[in-house]
């Protein structure tokens, strides 16, 4: 190890083993992945997000929502908890950049939040003040995604539909979601990985009614 070129080459060679394994090889194995047609429904999966949802993904990234929320369903306990109908696989993330799997669950997993919660106003209220809809939630308020406006002659159509307690608290004012809030909700609504795939079939043969296309938003839980 006193011969400098040999030491430097050894370092290079040793580091390249894991580099080939986890950087180059996944690219060879997964780089050619394409959307597939789901046999049961004839739909192409996954489909690219809408423009608004894509902007929402940017809001999700900018505010590092992944610090507290994962987007991956592991086989077993996660499914029992109702976080997904099946485990998530590579196919589910085909159109995500960046892929935000997350590494910590201070809050629940969001891989299928678009299937669990389909009410836009619920999502907006939750972002505005989580404790309005989830008792004693530990999530911070994303107040900065909303504008406080004095109510004019008549309330704005796009104002947040607040519960009475909160509406009374800010009497004379209304909360209007900014573009970022609407985009973020569109993104959350787009999050669902429950299409039956060859490599990750749904556990039981579901009835035709629950095998719906993403657009119908049937809840996976409840």
């Amino acid at each position: 190890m006193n011969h400098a070129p040999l030491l430097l080459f050894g370092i290079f060679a040793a580091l390249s083993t894991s580099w080939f394994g986890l950087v180059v090889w996944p690219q060879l194995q997964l780089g050619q992945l394409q959307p597939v047609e789901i046999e049961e429904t004839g739909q192409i999966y996954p489909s690219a997000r809408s423009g608004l949802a894509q902007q929402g993904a940017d809001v999700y990234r900018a505010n590092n929502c992944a610090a507290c929320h994962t987007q991956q369903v592991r086989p077993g306990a996660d499914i029992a908890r109702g976080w997904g109908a099946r485990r998530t696989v590579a196919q589910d993330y085909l159109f995500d950049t960046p892929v935000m799997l997350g590494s910590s669950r201070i809050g629940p997993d969001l891989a299928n939040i678009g299937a669990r919660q389909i009410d836009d106003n619920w999502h907006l209220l939750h972002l505005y003040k989580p404790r309005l809809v989830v008792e004693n939630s530990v999530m911070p308020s994303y107040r900065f995604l909303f504008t406080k406006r004095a109510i004019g002659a008549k309330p704005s159509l796009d104002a947040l539909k607040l519960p009475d307690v909160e509406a009374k608290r800010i009497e004379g004012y209304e909360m209007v979601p900014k573009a970022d809030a609407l985009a973020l909700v569109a993104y959350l609504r787009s999050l669902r990985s429950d299409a039956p795939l060859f490599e990750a079939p749904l556990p039981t043969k579901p009835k035709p009614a629950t095998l719906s296309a993403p657009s119908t938003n049937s809840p996976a839980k409840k």
Partner: protein
Amino acid sequence: MSLSTQTESRANAPAASAEVDASCRAPVLFLFTSALLWLVASGSLGLIASLKMHQPLLLVRGAELTYGRILAASSNAFLFGFAAQAILGVTLWMLARLGGTPLVRPIVALLGAIIWNLAVTVGVGGILAGDSSGYEGFEFPSYAVPALLTAYTAIALCAVATYLQRRERDSYVSQWYLLAGLFALPWAYLTVHSLLLINPVRGVAQAAINAWAGAVLREIWLGGAALAVIFYLVPKLLNRPLYSRGYAQIGFWMLLVLGGWTGLHSGAPLPLWMVRMSSFASLLMIFPLFVVAWNLHVTAGGQRVFGADCRVLAFAGSGLVFYLLATLVMAINPLISEAVQFTYYSAAVKHIAFYGAFSMAMFAAIYHIVPRLADADWPCANPMKWHHKLAVAGVMLVALPLAFAGWQQWMGLLDPSADFNQISRTAMRAYRITTIGEILWLASSLLLVVNLVKLLASRFCPCAALASCTAESNGGAR
């Protein structure tokens, strides 16, 4: 005990030490000072994040102070503000000292260090402004990276040139680790930059790349630097030769081959073979760990390292103990990962690795190196003692509550019908204690900064008389 009077156990080229130290003075002192300022910045952000976690209604008006952004800013300020500069400073000095040759082109290294600081400032500012890249551990926006890599190249070239011009032909284990780290960081960051930020690959291959780069950073760059310092200081301060160069080689090469594999976890949406390989590599990390521990154990020959009277040695010893603990826990992680993954337990382990193992080793290095460069002793030993106590307490008071909270989450999640929010709330009770740990840690960092500023002022400022030890010696220990 006076540090500068301790004998040199490894023979440098005769009469070179003073010359070597003089050549390193400007860049290394600059790197260390700015590293410690970033440590304080990162600690302050970490404290805010910790507060916000259990006070979710605190500071919610501005997007810049969102928990997610603060957390990412804090960890990136730690990694690239503190860790990178501390490692580079140690690398420049140690390669020059162990090679028995003056640093090559110190002015280039100094310029590189200045640019590096500007790039890190832009990066951290970018994260707070919402331009985070979204890849954990590499959140700097892509516009900050070219300057970062340019600055790094400038400093690294000086380091490599210094190594190649060494007069001491025999290389020592510390040099291997530092050289490996010198290559590992830009390799990892260049991979992230080109394959994730500039021209992103599709789908979950991104996650694999992110995991690889993160593991290289954690195991080889941070872990290797900690080991380099420990392998340098323990034999030197105990005045005993290293027990076995062969063992050191085994530990080194195993870490290098295995380190990058260890980042994936079971259940990830990746091909199964990758996850299996990663778990296997994690388990194999037991061997380099054991080899390193045994080598240092025999080297110490029964002398106290952990609770040593010599403060530098005590820091190095704490770093070693935390390193062994963190690596052991990470090695057996695949066995329990399904239960503890995504809980606070993982955060606890990471905290021990970064703030326990790595930072303690770096503090030891800074305490050892700075007096040699400044040619002056630390103005007072008291803050050093307090720094050590507060830092160890700070690490423990974050890691232990986190580990306990993680255990609570684990137990809570065993029942699939249990309310998730309730589990989070239960774990939050223990989490509150981490705020105290963060405060202690920040106070300990401030102590070191105050001590360093006083030393530099007494050495380089004409009004040296002002820097007396007695009045403010515990000023940072509020």
